[in-house]
């Protein structure tokens, strides 16, 4: 598994295409969790987590299932935790779940890459 992270619009998708050439990049903002379990690459994973929460399902259980059933997947995950913790309970819950799922993914992944202004740095493993 490979995790690409960084701020919103930091260049994750462009870098993913250039470095890994996945056959398709599934959009976590519209795909079903079932589709994600079979995808070679999932973008906007943080939005998929939000949608799973909205269905009253458990994103941590889903992430564990993803790691188990789709261990070669490339995950694109925005860093979202650098602002003020929001007053809204659901917003806080989304951040917390995104953090937990992100940590599960990076703990399992052999490669974790962070983009800054389009420039990749390996946080774990090596750049391809």
């Amino acid at each position: 598994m490979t995790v690409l992270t960084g701020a919103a619009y930091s260049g994750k998708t462009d870098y993913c295409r250039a470095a890994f050439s996945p056959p398709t990049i599934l959009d976590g903002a519209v795909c079903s969790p079932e589709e994600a379990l079979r995808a070679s690459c999932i973008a906007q994973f943080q939005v998929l987590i939000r949608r799973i929460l909205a269905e009253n399902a458990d994103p941590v259980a889903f992430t564990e299932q993803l790691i188990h059933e789709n261990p070669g997947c490339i995950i694109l995950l925005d860093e979202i935790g650098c602002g003020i913790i929001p007053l809204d309970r659901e917003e806080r819950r989304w951040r917390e779940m995104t953090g937990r799922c992100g940590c599960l993914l990076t703990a399992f992944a052999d490669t974790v890459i962070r983009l800054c202004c389009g420039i990749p740095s390996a946080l774990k493993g090596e750049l391809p």
Partner: protein
Amino acid sequence: MLTLITGGSKCGRSALGERLLDGFRGEKYYIATMQPYGAEAGAAIARHRAMRAGKGFTTVEQYTDLGALTLPPGCAVLLECTGNLTANEIFLAGCKAPAEKITQAVAALAATADTLVVIHSEVGADGMTYAPETALYIREMAQLGRNLAQMASTVAECIYGIPIVHKGVLPCF
């Protein structure tokens, strides 16, 4: 030679930028982009002026339309910062594509100057959903950061004054 310094706000980017130009022997210009509205902006401007005092910078104020600014060839320039410039372009000048406009202006400036240091801000890592104009600001800022990083010979991210070099080398570290 273009150096891009990015990072969160108040993380020591300016001091790092100033330090990079410490050894420069020619003319040094500081491009200020913050409009002096309100006590908070006034205090920030005063603090930055005090930081720069005695370092030989000539201050030039340019809130929008960076491309209209002409500086003498071979000078050193500290541009502070893209966050203000982009906000001014969107909210004062009504520009819908400030990233492209500012990229072109920086390219022209980099071609004239001996050394150009640009201070940039990371604004897209808080997970918030914003009103369309603010969302545009965040998208354009990220686009500008990617454009400038591609153009720059050196890119560093600043964390409490400590640079993480993502591209090239920082001469004084």
